[in-house]
């Protein structure tokens, strides 16, 4: 069996490819990529078995960043878990905050003022811009760019982080949403700043795409690499841009219509191939839709209170029951499941982390590809180890 046969066998979702051991093919090479490999996006480890450079087996190892998040949540008050959610997916703390706040609000039947809903949408879409920009930069870094797209991505991300900092006091660990609203009311200046950023972001995306999207090397590296079939994606529970890149129309902003999303006009881009290039492009197109949502939300934000006046900050004891709050995070469906027994702490606190679940099919995507492909496939899954290992 030659290497080319191997690559045809290693179709996504296929069974494990067995390489032939004989005098012509030699031994397989087992390489431990990670936990301190430069492009494992943190402390992720892949034990890769290679035939030449072709992957015949890939065993992901997680848990190097495990911080007992869910057990901590059961031993902390409802409010006390909020800053911890920042540290799940530390690139998108605002959406984590929102998903958790949504779960608690469902549990307690807590209404949210309209202005707060708008602010949440604005922050979630800014987070999506931030996250997708970073992802594109990281992915191109994995493709072997000498840092240039990553630095451009970080240049723009810095502007969004400045907005977050001037609103919430911290760049990444925002801890901004509260049960029944948001912590601080954004000033008119802040909204102007967000508007300015939104208006300028399209130009940055154009430049970014000129550098990357039409680049022949990028296309050759990413097209047809790491294909994922819609059936496998659905059965594995993959969500977010990765699922939409396979052509499945599933966006919680449309499906659940949570918050005030039904009021905005935006489209959901879908891919047809489910490969790395589609995942990259879906994210770029989603950013363009996010810009549309942002300009609508910034134009239509109503005046009013930012917190529900009846909302309780301390001594918060929701009645016994359970609730699941989920939103469309930048990486996929981020959900929090809470069971209350009427005490100040949740009885059970469970997270549905999108990047962990999206990562479970890594081997299926990587089999039959080369080492170089495995790196960019991992990059295109968009993981943050804080969320994978929790």
């Amino acid at each position, binding site marked *: 069996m030659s290497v080319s046969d191997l690559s045809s066998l290693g179709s996504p979702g296929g069974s494990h490819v067995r390489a032939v051991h004989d005098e012509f093919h030699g031994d397989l090479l087992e390489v431990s990529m990670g936990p301190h490999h430069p492009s494992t996006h943190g402390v992720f480890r892949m034990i890769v078995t290679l035939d030449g450079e072709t992957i015949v087996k890939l065993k992901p190892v997680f848990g190097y960043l495990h911080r007992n998040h869910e057990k901590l949540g059961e031993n902390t*008050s409802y409010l006390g*878990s909020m800053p911890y959610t920042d540290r799940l997916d530390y690139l998108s703390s605002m959406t984590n905050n929102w998903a958790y706040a949504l779960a608690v609000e469902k549990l307690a039947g807590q209404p949210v003022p309209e202005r707060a809903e708008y602010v949440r949408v604005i922050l979630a879409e800014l987070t999506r811009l931030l996250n997708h920009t970073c992802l594109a930069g990281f992915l191109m870094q994995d493709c072997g760019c000498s840092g240039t797209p990553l630095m451009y991505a970080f240049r723009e991300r810095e502007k969004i982080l400045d907005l977050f900092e001037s609103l919430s006091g911290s760049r990444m660990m925002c*801890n901004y949403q509260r049960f029944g609203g948001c912590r601080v009311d954004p000033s008119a200046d802040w909204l102007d700043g967000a508007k300015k950023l939104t208006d300028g972001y399209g130009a940055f995306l154009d430049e970014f795409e000129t550098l990357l999207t*039409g680049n022949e*090397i990028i296309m050759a590296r990413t097209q047809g690499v790491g294909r994922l079939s819609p059936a496998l994606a659905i059965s594995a529970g993959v969500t977010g841009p990765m699922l939409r890149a396979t052509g499945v129309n599933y966006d919680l902003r449309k499906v659940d219509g949570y918050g005030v999303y039904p009021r905005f006009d935006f489209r959901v881009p879908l891919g047809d191939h489910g490969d790395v290039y589609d995942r990259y492009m879906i994210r770029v197109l989603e950013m363009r839709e996010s810009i549309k949502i942002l300009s609508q939300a910034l134009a239509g934000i109503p005046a009013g209170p930012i917190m529900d006046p009846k909302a309780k900050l301390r001594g918060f004891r929701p009645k016994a029951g359970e609730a699941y709050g989920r939103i469309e995070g930048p990486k996929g469906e981020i959900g929090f499941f809470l069971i209350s027994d009427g005490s100040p702490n949740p009885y059970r606190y469970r997270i549905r982390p999108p990047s962990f679940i999206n990562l479970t099919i890594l081997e299926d995507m990587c089999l039959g590809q080369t080492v170089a492909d495995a790196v960019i496939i991992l990059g295109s899954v968009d993981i943050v180890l804080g969320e994978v290992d929790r």
Partner: protein
Amino acid sequence: MLGSGLLQGLGVTAKNFVGSFHDPARLTTTEYPEVKTKLPEAYRNFPFLVSENATDPMGTLRCVACQICEKECPPQCIFIEKSKDKKPDATGKLQLFPAVFDIDVSVCMSCQICVEVCPFDAIKMDQDFEIATTDRFTGLMLDKHALAKPNSYFHEIHPTDAAEVDGRLAAERKAAEEKAKAAAAAKAALAAAPKPAPAALAATAKPPAAPSAEAPKTPPAA
């Protein structure tokens, strides 16, 4: 044609190379120790304790050692010991004060929850981030002497917030004075009248420092 995308990419990088010399939007670096970025007013780092008076920080701490922040702190980095005796607080009422107030900033995650739950506006977020030290055990374990900073410093770093807090405290103080006056009047009336008025008694029993209804903060736990 093959290579056109590559040439476009070269164009973009060339534009950025040239732009980094004249376009401030394309060279965003601040060279830190010499040039410092202006921190936004909302910026928060580790907490500090507000004292009314810079000359006597320990005597005028707003903190009354109620231990709410200690209880609410998610990583539990605050350690408080109540005093045995009482001191007059900002409104002149006798209150407990913290005999020990330690914050382990190597554990603190600057989440601001202590600030939000504090009913006395006694703990606020600092903006000092240059606290690196070679001694991580005692150097990062801040006691109340290291934590206490005057109200003027609070005004300096969070002017809007501080003005709002001061206004509220002044209103509370005024309300407390009026209440005390009313109580004194009631007492005088009580002394004059043969029978005590139950409503006036209830008013005196209420804590004088109860926050006004407009304040967004919740009152201290009953």
